[in-house]
């Protein structure tokens, strides 16, 4: 497809009022979500940010003890409540700094397995999970030795920055983005049929290749949607929760630790990850999901040739992906069932960290996207081949 035609296709999408309308509605919802999660308490977050800056990112023992002993002089024009907040922060650090020393990950694994309904790993599968957790134990040793767990951050048990940003906000954004992407691709790919121009456009080889170009144009425009949908709510989040100077904090720090279900323990990343690196990886997955949904939508549309049924099929596929791990409850099949885009979306917030015993290996997120992208690309190729030979009458 020539650049000129590609431009025209993109212009069709950019001129579609309904996509902009939907984008605005999604944005309003996301901003409301951010406001609800951190907007109300923004003053608290800012006060805590000042305290973190004052105490410093490196939570050395003596500094914390000095604050608790009351030796430290109030800095500048600090108000009394800010000093008491600093003391509270120091107490929080003192209470939780030893969490890695008492962390029993094997016990947590067993509790998670015990609490899951009908989930009873046996034989090779059980050994595989145990081996994964042995690696995680080694990783905990590494965290303890390198001291990466001792970075200052918003106290996770109270402020829940990680789960609010990567869990709630990104989960909403991702779902919206997947919908927008599917709509963009399907709108363009079904355009000629609905405008009754397909017998003109698809009468030549170049015309038939155009359908793939439409899929690509839809994907490119979806990146624009992604840019808006991610930057505005995340920007607002970061405005309410200042992060300047905190990007270097390790995600596995005990300060980031939050209550997750029945468990309270730190986020154990499979590899050392700073907050900025974690955000970067999440954005990469978001980008890859946009590509995956575009290709999936293109594949389904190639075979069904009706945007409405394609969208319905994709919705059923999505909900089916969520339900599948509940149906396949044991063995490697359960892990395989969890490696699907819908489950990946649902587990947003638990990416790149120990989360589910069935997915206790590194980079499962990339495996999910990789496997599905390969499958979808194969489908797209077959669909394109079929379409090239099809008599569209």
């Amino acid at each position: 497809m020539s650049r000129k035609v590609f431009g025209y296709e993109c212009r069709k999408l950019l001129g579609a009022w309904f996509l902009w309308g939907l984008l605005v509605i999604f944005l309003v919802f996301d901003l409301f979500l951010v406001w609800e999660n951190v907007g109300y308490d923004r003053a608290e977050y800012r006060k805590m940010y000042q305290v973190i800056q004052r105490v410093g990112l490196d939570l050395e023992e003596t500094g914390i003890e000095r604050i608790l002993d009351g030796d430290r002089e109030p800095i500048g024009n600090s108000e009394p409540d800010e000093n008491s907040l600093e003391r509270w922060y120091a107490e929080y650090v003192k209470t939780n700094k030893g969490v890695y020393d008492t962390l029993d990950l094997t016990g947590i694994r067993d509790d998670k397995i015990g609490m899951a309904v009908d989930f009873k790993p046996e034989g090779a599968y059980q050994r595989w999970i145990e081996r994964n957790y042995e690696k995680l134990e080694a990783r905990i040793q590494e965290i303890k030795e390198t001291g990466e767990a001792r970075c200052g951050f918003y106290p996770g048990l109270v402020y829940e920055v990680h789960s609010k940003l990567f869990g709630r906000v990104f989960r909403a954004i991702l779902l919206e983005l997947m919908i927008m992407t599917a709509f963009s691709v399907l709108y363009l790919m079904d355009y000629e049929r609905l405008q009754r121009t397909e017998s003109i456009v698809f009468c030549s080889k170049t015309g038939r290749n155009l359908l793939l170009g439409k899929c690509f144009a839809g994907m490119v425009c979806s990146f624009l949607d992604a840019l808006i949908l991610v930057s505005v709510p995340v920007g607002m989040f970061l405005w309410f929760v200042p992060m300047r100077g905190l990007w270097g904090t390790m995600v596995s720090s005990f300060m980031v630790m939050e209550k997750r279900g029945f468990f309270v323990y730190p986020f154990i990343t499979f590899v050392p990850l700073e907050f900025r690196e974690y955000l970067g990886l999440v954005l990469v997955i978001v980008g890859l999901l946009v590509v995956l949904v575009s290709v999936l939508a293109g594949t389904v549309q190639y075979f069904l040739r009706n945007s409405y049924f394609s969208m319905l099929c994709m919705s059923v596929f999505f909900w089916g992906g969520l339900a599948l791990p509940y149906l396949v409850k044991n063995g490697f099949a359960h892990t395989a069932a969890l490696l699907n885009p819908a489950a990946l979306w649902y587990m947003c917030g638990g990416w790149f960290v120990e989360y589910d015993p069935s997915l206790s290996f590194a980079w499962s997120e990339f495996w999910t996207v990789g496997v599905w992208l390969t499958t979808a690309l194969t489908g797209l190729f077959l669909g394109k081949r079929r379409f090239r030979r099809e008599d569209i009458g």
Partner: protein
Amino acid sequence: MRIFRKELRKIFQFRVIVLFALFAVIFGYLFFAWQYYPGYYVNSAYDVPFYEELVAEYGATLSKTEYQDVLKKREELIDQVEVYIREDIVFQENDVTTYAQFQESHAKEAVTDAEMAVQEETNRFWFRNEATQWLLFRIQVLDNMERDVQFGRIYADEDALRIYADFLNSNSYEARERLKALFMRDEMSLLPDAVYELLNTDFFNLVILVVVCCFVLMLPYQISDRLRGILPIAVSTKTGRRIFGKQMAACVVTGGIVAAVLGGIYSILLAQKHVFVFWDCPLSHNPYRLWVDMTMGEYWILCMVLLVGISMTGALLSYFVGRLSSHYITGLAAAIPAAVIYCAGIRFFTKYMFMIGDMYFYRSYGHSLFRTFGGLLLLAGIAVTMVMVLLRRDKERDL
């Protein structure tokens, strides 16, 4: 009538129905509380079967004299538990011989090793010994009934009312009078809280499902008509313009059919779980006292009637969205916010359906009876107005 039937046939497309059925099964599997019943909102798996036994023995309610009979049953159950307690070695070693001592050891904070051993044994009796937990949870059900009587929530006299009724933070005269009447009833309902919670939770899930179904069925029907260029032909004659009204009627009827089918299937599922054993039990023995006297069966029928109304309104809304959409994706994009706002509105108006207040937290929900009906009528009114404006425009539209 022939046109109307043909319009209906156009709505019910086989492919769409199959896809929606698949979606409904997955949705039900993921979200409906039915599959966990009676696991949700009960202390144990023994609660609801025990209520079922009581209903079979005493009927839907317990009179004051029957209640005394039930108390005797409690004593019998305690005697049976005490046999197990006396036979247990750990309890023998620590001089725990009665049910009262057993309960005391279970509740108090264990400090010494002996106390911890006894507490561990009580835990085993409660949670890991099938023979004893069966008895203990039954006693707990009867204890809860006794507590309701003790706290003046049923069979209350004027003295009990003076002590407890004022706790409810209701400054409405009607609410206080209604509560007074409920507290002073001579009959205790044998409806477990779990049933009411199940019906309430799944009613909203059903609402979501019927609204989604209406949009899924109506959108391709309307949009494909538009894409095939039928509209200009239809509006070229007076008879043709009348078809829009028939289409709207077909949509409304479809809404009714969808609600009836989905509600009917769900009712069969409820019957499968023996929920309708409690059909005649009044909805008064639950933490949310209601403004109206009705049995569980009447409540469910009312829910189904409301579901049909909600579905018909949803169908009108989807007809409106479908008529204004020029492309399938446009229709879907407009349907998402429309369906979400509609469902949120229904949730807002039906969340505290008929409730006076929450008896556990002593909150008053005000006149929820009027809020429910008023709110749903408002939503229906808005949908009807929108469609009427559209149909009026069709009548006078210049091509």
